[in-house]
């Protein structure tokens, strides 16, 4: 905008004012633009503008008012305003001053290089662009008004024309808008930069949702520009409008460049079809991306969900809603379902989330036939997309420019992935392949450069044929499809014989096109079934083809390479010679053996037997004992074998007997047995080992083998071998004269334990020994080499548990290992007489122990010992009896005095009266009454003296000691001796007597009973070892008690019986007193050694010095008592 310049000062002001006004306009437009931007597009730039406006607006207003006032005051033209829309023509307008009527003619003069004036009636003028610098513009009115302006390019605004949108279209499936417009660049000097601003509004709210700007270059001609934009919200969900504006920056134009006006808005909207109401439909998106779905529904939508996941609804205009899904997962093959449920319906759509194709990996291209190139590859990561959204691949050869397409739409699945065929081009060996995979989400590619002649993997050879040349040579042919005429093929022929033996031969053949290839295969065996197969490659090896199918072929027959192994045995009667031979192995038979010819020849004649058909492998010839040579020839369809010869007679061997008796032993393992021998230089042919079952009768031949003459060992193996069977092996050596027996060996393949026990008997039995004899076990039952016998014995009787078995380690068992197998008897010594022994015998081999055989034997009784055992006690008893009788006889007076003193008259006994009065009325004290029989007890006590133990000490009858010595008496050392008068037995049934002497017993002591072993054993068990002294007759009697006292220590040591030295020390108890048997404390002494109940006589002692008897008393008493009874 130019202003009238009256004064320099004013002019300067106006220039400033122009600049400020121009800035103001520009800023105002910017502000407008900023205001029009959607709120989510406003940035902090808008915030920066607000402070400027605060002071700028009042200042400008003030300036404007001042200018108006000045203008009115002076009557000048106001507001010369120049703009341009193309830089080349300026359009200047102004306002006539007050008082000038519109349409007044005026002259406008512009002072440029030339002064040009224009007469016109309007208030605007278009002038060509002025050069840079100030130009004076004068407006002269005819009414003498004149206004002058200084016009500079800087005062001119470049405002381009409003742009016009050529077209706005939309791809609703991709929610993309396409905008097209013309820049009209031909109107502008070029080059110039144009900046475009595009706004997208969402209807019906006209809410700006997108404002973008971008720059273009004006090239001096009209150019159509395109812009597209993909909406997050499907375009079906709402109508959209688009408008554009622009401004031009021309470097040579120094004026202000302003925005054009916005173009007219172009609208785009979707026309709904019949049913679809959820968008986008069937969209393919990247897994992990975000997507928005909208539902156009006439009724209220209640919920929206993806799969089973409900999402919050975003309300659009009307009842339309949307949901926003973030980070979607890879879809199932049929896609992920999105469903909106409205009041009356269910709407939905499907999207497919997946990945773009991965870079093809391991791309491998090869040819099988030089016609097609087959490329295969690993597709890498799965895309998650199937069916029509699956990845398609294109194989492009950049050299030839040809391509091949792989589409899996038909296959639908990944099964056929991933190989592609490319037709080979003639005369092209190098291929530069680019394999590109693409799906709706993207594409990826790999490259591979190959020389196809180095990538040949031929097809599988087919149609194998084999043709015989001879028995060892065949021709093999096969067909190999493909054009290999320019290369050589390398093939492998696998020749299989049997199940395991295989040979691979490699050959090189010239290639051909779809041809049969024929090779010769030699070095085969006659009459052998071979399995042939072929595979091929090329000289520039890449891969082998697969093996062809196997072809089985049987070569033709040839004559047998040798004669069969022969052997001969004389029959048991020695008249016939039996010829044996073995069937030839297949590799030596060279065909099917049809028959054998056997002949025998001597010096005089040759005798030939008839042909023997194959299954038969022996012949019998009646021969005399002359020497014959037997020949055996095997025949097949190709001819006869060389003859095998063997002499009919063996060479005698002087040491044969010794050999046989040596009986060497050998044990094998499994089904094999290992034999060795020393090399014999005389054996020039071979060795033969024959064997037979040792228990077999008749000619001994089970089988035989031949071993080369240089061998010294062999392993014999046969399925016929059985464990536990004894075999005889015979080693023959072959010389020119015939076979000679060299060794004889007995052996087992495996030793087993004997199955029977040796049969043994007892040959002799004595009181302390047993002689056992056994027999050999038969070889068949021995089942191994006998290594010895085990003999057990122990005390025991039949059927007692203790002897039923022999437990190892039992201390009572005695074991004898008999390793001398020739020993057949055994004497067992140191046995006890008349004792039963359990004997067991077992044989054993290395295979184990055989069963046992047992026997019970009782040794004889030892008669001498028995006799001695009887006689000695009898003799002792007799001697004792005689001595005792003598002593008794010589001391009879003393005995009478001691034991049978005169009985005083009871009438004179005051004590009796006293007792009678005292105990009147007590039945228990009728001591003077003569009861028929009361058991009497005599107790002999001897303190501090060892009392001889008597066997019948079960009788317990305490005896009252002398009062003075009772305290010293050891109650445990007393011996109770009982005796009973003969009448006891008659009165034993008396109840009173039973009651009174219920615990009394009568024991009759027999001298002989003392020798009973049982009794003795019991005595030994019940007697203190220190007291054991047995019965000792009284040999020396003590003289008096004083002496006894002085020799107390000795008497303690003297075991045995001691007579009672002092009659006064006798303690008598009443045998009738029941309490006497209960307690020593209740013993009642009557002061007399008499038994008032006894009807026997007590012999008074002859004198005081007479020896007194205690133990002997009862002994003698018994003796005397028994004697009358006896």
């Amino acid at each position: 905008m130019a202003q009238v310049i009256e004064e320099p000062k004013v002019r300067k002001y106006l220039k400033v004012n122009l600049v400020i006004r121009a800035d103001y306009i520009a800023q105002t437009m910017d502000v407008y633009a900023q205001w029009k931007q959607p709120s989510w597009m406003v940035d902090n730039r808008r915030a920066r503008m607000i402070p400027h406006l605060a002071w700028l607006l009042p200042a400008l207003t003030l300036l404007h008012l001042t200018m108006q006032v000045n203008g009115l005051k002076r009557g000048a033209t106001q507001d010369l305003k120049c703009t341009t829309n193309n830089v080349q023509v300026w359009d200047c307008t102004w306002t006539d001053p007050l008082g000038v009527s519109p349409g007044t003619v005026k002259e406008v003069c512009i002072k440029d290089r030339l002064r040009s004036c224009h007469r016109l009636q309007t208030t605007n003028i278009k002038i060509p662009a002025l050069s840079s610098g100030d130009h004076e513009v004068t407006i002269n009115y005819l009414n003498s008004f004149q206004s002058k302006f200084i016009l500079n390019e800087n005062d001119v605004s470049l405002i381009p024309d409003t742009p016009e949108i050529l077209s706005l279209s939309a791809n609703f499936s991709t929610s993309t808008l396409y905008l097209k417009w013309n820049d009209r660049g031909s109107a502008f000097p070029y080059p110039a930069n144009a900046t475009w601003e595009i706004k997208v509004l969402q209807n019906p709210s006209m809410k700006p949702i997108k404002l973008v700007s971008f720059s273009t270059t004006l090239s001096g001609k009209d150019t159509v520009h395109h812009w597209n934009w993909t909406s997050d919200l499907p375009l079906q969900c709402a109508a959209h409008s688009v408008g554009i504006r622009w401004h031009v920056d021309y470097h040579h134009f120094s004026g202000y460049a302003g925005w054009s006006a916005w173009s007219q808005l172009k609208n785009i909207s979707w026309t709904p079809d019949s049913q679809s109401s959820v968008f986008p439909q069937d969209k393919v998106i990247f897994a992990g991306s975000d997507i928005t779905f909208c539902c156009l529904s006439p009724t209220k939508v209640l919920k929206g969900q993806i799969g089973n996941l409900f999402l919050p609804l975003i309300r659009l205009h009307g009842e339309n809603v949307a949901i926003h899904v973030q980070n979607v997962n890879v879809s199932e093959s049929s896609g992920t379902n999105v469903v909106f449920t409205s009041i009356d319906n269910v709407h939905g759509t499907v999207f497919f989330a997946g990945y773009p194709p991965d870079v093809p990996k391991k791309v491998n291209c090869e040819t099988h036939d030089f016609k097609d190139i087959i490329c295969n590859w690993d597709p890498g990561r799965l895309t998650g997309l199937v069916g029509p959204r699956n990845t398609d691949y294109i194989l492009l050869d950049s050299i030839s420019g040809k391509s091949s397409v792989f589409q899996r739409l038909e296959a639908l699945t990944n099964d056929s992935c991933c190989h592609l065929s490319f037709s080979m081009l003639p005369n092209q060996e190098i291929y530069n392949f680019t394999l590109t995979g693409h799906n709706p989400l993207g594409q990826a590619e790999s490259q591979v450069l190959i020389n196809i002649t180095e990538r040949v993997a031929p097809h599988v050879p087919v149609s194998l044929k084999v043709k015989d040349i001879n028995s060892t040579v065949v021709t093999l042919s096969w067909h190999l499809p493909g054009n290999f005429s320019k290369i050589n093929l390398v093939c492998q022929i696998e020749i299989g014989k049997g199940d395991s033996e295989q040979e691979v031969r490699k050959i090189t053949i010239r290639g051909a096109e779809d041809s049969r290839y024929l090779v010769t295969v030699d070095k085969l065996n006659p009459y052998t079934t071979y399995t042939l197969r072929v595979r091929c490659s090329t000289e520039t090896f890449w891969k082998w083809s697969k093996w062809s199918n196997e072809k089985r072929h049987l070569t033709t027959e040839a004559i047998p390479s040798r004669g069969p192994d022969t052997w001969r045995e004389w029959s048991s009667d020695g008249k016939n010679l039996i010829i044996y031979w073995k069937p030839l192995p297949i590799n030596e038979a060279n065909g099917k053996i049809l028959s054998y010819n056997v002949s025998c020849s001597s010096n005089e004649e040759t005798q030939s037997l008839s042909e023997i058909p194959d299954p038969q492998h022996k012949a019998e010839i009646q021969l005399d004992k002359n020497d014959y040579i037997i020949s055996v020839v095997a025949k097949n369809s190709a001819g006869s074998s060389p003859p095998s010869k063997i002499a009919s007679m063996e060479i005698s061997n002087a040491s044969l007997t010794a050999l046989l008796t040596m009986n060497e032993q050998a044990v094998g393992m499994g089904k094999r047995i290992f034999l060795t021998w020393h090399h014999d230089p005389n054996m020039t042919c071979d060795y033969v080992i024959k064997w037979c079952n040792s228990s077999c009768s008749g000619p001994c031949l089970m089988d035989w083998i031949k071993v080369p003459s240089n061998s010294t060992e062999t392993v014999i193996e046969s399925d016929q071998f059985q464990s536990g069977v004894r075999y005889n092996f015979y080693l023959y050596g072959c010389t020119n004269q015939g076979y000679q027996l060299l060794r004889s060996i007995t052996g087992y393949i495996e030793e087993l334990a004997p199955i029977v026990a040796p049969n043994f008997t007892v040959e002799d039995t004595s009181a302390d020994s047993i002689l056992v004899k056994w027999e050999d076990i038969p070889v068949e039952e021995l089942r191994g080499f006998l290594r010895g016998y085990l003999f057990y014995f122990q005390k025991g009787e039949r059927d007692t548990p203790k002897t039923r078995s022999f437990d190892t380690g039992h201390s009572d068992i005695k074991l004898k290992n008999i390793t001398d197998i020739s020993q057949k008897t055994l004497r067992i010594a140191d046995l006890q007489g008349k004792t039963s022994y359990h004997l067991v015998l077992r044989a054993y081999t290395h295979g184990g122990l055989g069963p046992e055989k047992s026997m019970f034997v009782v040794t004889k009784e030892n008669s001498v010992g028995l006799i001695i055992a009887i006689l000695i006690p009898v003799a002792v008893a007799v001697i004792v009896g005689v001595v005792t009788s003598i002593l008794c006889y010589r001391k009879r007076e003393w005995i009478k005095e001691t034991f049978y003193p005169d009985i005083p008259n009871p009438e004179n006994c005051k004590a009796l009266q006293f007792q009678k009065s005292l105990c009147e009325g007590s039945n228990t004290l009728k001591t003077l009454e003569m009861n028929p029989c009361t058991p009497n007890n005599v107790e002999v006590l001897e303190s501090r003296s060892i009392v001889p133990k008597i066997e019948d000490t079960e009788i317990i009858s305490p005896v009252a000691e002398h009062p003075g010595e009772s305290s010293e008496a050891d109650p445990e050392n007393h011996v109770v001796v009982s005796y009973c008068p003969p009448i006891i037995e008659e009165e034993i049934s008396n109840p009173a007597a039973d009651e009174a002497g219920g615990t009394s017993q009568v024991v009759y002591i027999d001298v002989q009973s003392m020798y009973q072993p049982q009794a003795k054993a019991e005595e030994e068990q019940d007697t203190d070892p220190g007291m054991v002294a047995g019965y000792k007759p009284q040999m020396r009697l003590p003289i008096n008690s004083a002496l006894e006292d002085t020799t107390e220590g000795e008497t303690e040591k003297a075991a045995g019986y001691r007579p009672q030295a002092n009659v006064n020390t006798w303690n008598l108890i009443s045998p009738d007193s029941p309490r006497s048997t209960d307690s020593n404390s209740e013993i009642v002494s009557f002061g007399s050694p008499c038994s008032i109940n006894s009807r026997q006589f007590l012999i008074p002692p002859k004198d005081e010095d007479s020896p007194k008897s205690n133990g002997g008393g009862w002994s003698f008493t018994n003796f005397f008592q028994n004697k009358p009874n006896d």
Partner: protein
Amino acid sequence: MERESSENWERDKPGSQGAGWGWGDRTGWDQGAWELGNRRVVPLLLVLHWKPGAGSPLPITSVNATCATRHPCHGNLMNQIKNQLAQLNGSANALFISYYTTQGEPFPNNVDKLCGPNMTDFPPFHVNGTEKTKLVELYRMVTYLTASLGNVTRDQKVLNPNALSLHGKLNATIDIMRGLLSNVLCRLCNKYHVGHVDVTYTPDISSKDVFQRKKLGCQLLGTYKQVISVVAQAF
């Protein structure tokens, strides 16, 4: 039983005329198209020849129309028809379940809403009608189902190429239906001398979006499951 039915179906020439295929103004028996139909391309042909208005039912032709079969019909046709219906009825639920399970969520959990038997163009069937009427209606219905299931099968092979179980069930159902069609036609032809039955087909849905196809297929199978039980009991 199924094999016999299939053989019957393969040997017999259906007596329906061209109008029975649903494109209205066409007449004349297209034997080649029928044989192609045997090879399971009937749905494709239907789609190719579909025109607006094809879904409208057409009247039964007169009883005196030409009625001929290529091969003699089986003697015990009604038994075979009953058995085939029983077979279809027995497998319909499993097919339905397999279908909506394969479509992914939320189909299995919204069977009522998404697979409700609310098809408007499904051929009617009257239980109380005469045998002839019932056979005619059965023929219409099975023809409709065969074509529709062909479309469903085609869609599912694209959408769920690995759902072999579903494919097998669909194919088996279509095979039985074709055998049933043959037998029904034989019965109609032999006993009632009905040589032509006007049939209707479902509108083409190949242009619809995937969700609509899924949903329509599910609704079809839901309807089929319900109807076939009624039909099976009606015979």
